[in-house]
C-alpha cells in the first residue's frame, strides 16, 4: 500500500506545483507549508502573491483583505520548518535496534492574512483649489538643501496658503511626509526625513495651524520622486510632501 500511495501523492504534489496553474492549485499553494512546496528564488510566489482572491472558490481558508477598504493589499503567508533530530551515530544505531518509528512530520498550518489597517484619512472636503495649478494650494512640496531641514524662503508663501486653508477648514487633516535622498543608511535617513517633516509641521504651527490637524511622519529614502542616482535626482528627493485627508 505504502509503495503505491507515495508516488501518487508525490505526483499530485508535483502536478500542483508545476502544472498549469488551475484555480484549485493556486489556492492550495497559499495554505501548503513551505517545506512541501519549493519556491525557487527566480520564480517564487512573486506572481501569485499579488493576485486578487478567486471569487468562485470557497475552499480557501485565508481571509483576504477586503478590497477597497485600504487600497493597500498586504499579504502574509506561513512557513513551517521541518523537524530534524540529530544524534551521534552510536546512539542512532541503538535507536534503530529499538526499531522505533517516529512519525511526527511537519504539520501544515494555513497562512494568515490580516487586513491592512490604515489611518482614517478618508472623508470629503472642498478641494477645488487643491487641483487648481494657479492656486498655491496645488503646491505640496517643500524642497530641502543637502543635510538640511531648514525651510527656504521660496516656500513661505505656499506654506501660508496651506496654513490659511487649514485654519478656515478646521476639519482638514494633513499628513506631512519627510523624505531624503538615497545615500547612506535607510533607518538613519528615516530619522533625517522626520526632521524635515517636523520642520514643516513647526512652520505651519507657527502660522496658526493646531497641532491636532497635522501629523509629521517620515518616508526616509523609500519614496523617491526621481529614481536617478545623481545630484539632480537627490535634490528632487529631499523634500516634505503635504497630503490631505482623503488623498
Amino acid at each position: 500500500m505504502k509503495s503505491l500511495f507515495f508516488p501518487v501523492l508525490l505526483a499530485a504534489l508535483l502536478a500542483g506545483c508545476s502544472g498549469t496553474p488551475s484555480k484549485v492549485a493556486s489556492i492550495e499553494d497559499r495554505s501548503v507549508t513551505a517545506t512541501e512546496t519549493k519556491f525557487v528564488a527566480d520564480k517564487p510566489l512573486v506572481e501569485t502573491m499579488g493576485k486578487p482572491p478567486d471569487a468562485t472558490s470557497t475552499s480557501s481558508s485565508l481571509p483576504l483583505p477586503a478590497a477597497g477598504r485600504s487600497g493597500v493589499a498586504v499579504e502574509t503567508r506561513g512557513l513551517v520548518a521541518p523537524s530534524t533530530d540529530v544524534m551521534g551515530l552510536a546512539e542512532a544505531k541503538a535507536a534503530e535496534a529499538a526499531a522505533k518509528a517516529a512519525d511526527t512530520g511537519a504539520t501544515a498550518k494555513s497562512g494568515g492574512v490580516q487586513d491592512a489597517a490604515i489611518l482614517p484619512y478618508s472623508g470629503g472636503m472642498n478641494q477645488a483649489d487643491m487641483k487648481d495649478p494657479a492656486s498655491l494650494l496645488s503646491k505640496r512640496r517643500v524642497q530641502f538643501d543637502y543635510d538640511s531641514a531648514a525651510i527656504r524662503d521660496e516656500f513661505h508663501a505656499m506654506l501660508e496658503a496651506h496654513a490659511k486653508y487649514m485654519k478656515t477648514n478646521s476639519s482638514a487633516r494633513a499628513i506631512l511626509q519627510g523624505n531624503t535622498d538615497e545615500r547612506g543608511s535607510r533607518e538613519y535617513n528615516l530619522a533625517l526625513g522626520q526632521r524635515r517633516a517636523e520642520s514643516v509641521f513647526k512652520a505651519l504651527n507657527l502660522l496658526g495651524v493646531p497641532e491636532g490637524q497635522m501629523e509629521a511622519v517620515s518616508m526616509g529614502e523609500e519614496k523617491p520622486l526621481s529614481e536617478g542616482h545623481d545630484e539632480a535626482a537627490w535634490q528632487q528627493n529631499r523634500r516634505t510632501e503635504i497630503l490631505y485627508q482623503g488623498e
Partner: protein
Amino acid sequence: MTIEIVGGATNRIPIAILPFLVAPELASGTSDPALVVAGDLGRSGYFKLLDTSTVSGLPADPESLPLAPWKALGADAVVVGQIKPQGSERVEVRFWLFDPVRQTRLSALSYTTTRAGLRGVAHRISDAVHQALLGEPGAYGGRIAYIVKHHGHYELQVADADSQNAVTVTSSPEPLISPAWSPDGRRLAYVSFEDKKPVVYVQNLADGYRRAVAKFRGSNSAPAWSPDGRRLAVALSKDETSQIYSLDLLTGDATRLTQGGALDTEPEFSPDGLWLYFTSDRGGSPQIYRESLSTGKVNRVTFEGNYNVSPALSPDGRTLAFIHRRDSQFHVAVMDLNNHQLQVLTDSTQDESPSFAGNGRVLLYATMVQGRGVLATVSIDGKIRQRLSQGGDLREPAWGR
C-alpha cells in the same frame, strides 16, 4: 538566486565529497545532500573540491570505505553518507568524515528528518565538516531574511543561508524595510509603509499572523529584539524627532531609553542585554554610541570619520560591525570592542545593513552592483566574499537562526 565568490583563503583544504548512498525506495525524488554540502563548502572559500568520479566503487557500508585511493588523490578529508527511510514519513541521514592521510574517522553523525528537511540536514553536515576541519563553527545553516523590490512591489523573503528555498512571507505594494529575527527564529519584526507612514509589525513565521506593535503618532521604525525576545527596541517620533524606546511585547508599554534633542535610531542590544548600541547625531555627525541599560550612562564608540551608522554586534559581543563612510563611499567595517581598532572590510561603495552569521565569522550586507541591489557576505577578516543576486533589487538582509 546566483552566488559568486570573490577572493578566498590562500590554502584551501582539498576535500572529496562522495555521492550519498540513497536507499532504493527513496531514490525517486530525493536530491542528494552531497550536492548541497559540496555547494556550501565549495563556495565558502576554505575548501577545494576534488573530482570524485575518478575513484570508482562505493562500498555498501560507507563506514568501511577504503581510504588509500583518496589519499592517493590528494584528499585531506573525505565525506561519505547514506539515506534510509525511517517509518513512512521520515528519513535517516548518516554521514562520516574521514582523514585518509591519518586513516582516521573525524566525525560521524545521524539525523532524522522529513524529506523536506534534507537540505537543512545537508547544511548541518557542512557545519559539522567545517567545525571538524577548521576548528571553528561554519555558517551554512540558519536562514536569512531580506527585502526584494520587484516591479515596484515589495516582498519580505526568507531563505536558507545559501539563498535556496526562498519564500515570500509578506508582500506589499508599499515599502518594507528593517526585518529583524526574534532570538528563537520564529518571528520577524519589520517596518511597513502601507499606512502612509512607517509602522513596526511583528509576524509569526509559522502561520503568517502579524500585528502592528508600534503605531504611535509620527514615525515608528528600526526594530531590534532584546536577547530574551520579550521586548523590542524601536525608534519613535511620538515625543521628539527620533528617540529610542523599549517596547514590552506583552503589555505594549513603551519606555523611553534615550534623551535629548538629537536623532537617535538603529538600536541594537548587546547579546548579554546590558548595553544598547545605537546611531545618534548628538555630536554633530552620525556616530555609534552605547548606553548602559542599568545606569543610563552613554558613551561614544566610533570616532574615526564623520559617518558611522547601522551597528551590529557579533554573537559573543566582542566585535561591532557598522557602515563607515570614507571619501563619500559607504563600506562595511568592524571594530574590536576591546582595542577599538577599526578595519574596513569591503571595497564596494554603497554598502548597507551589516548582520552577523550565527558563528560570528561572516557578515551579510546589502550593496549595489551596476545600479542593482544585491546581497553579499564577507568574512570578518575581509578575505572571503560572496555575492547573492536574483531578479529585482535585494536589500535589508538579516541573518537569523
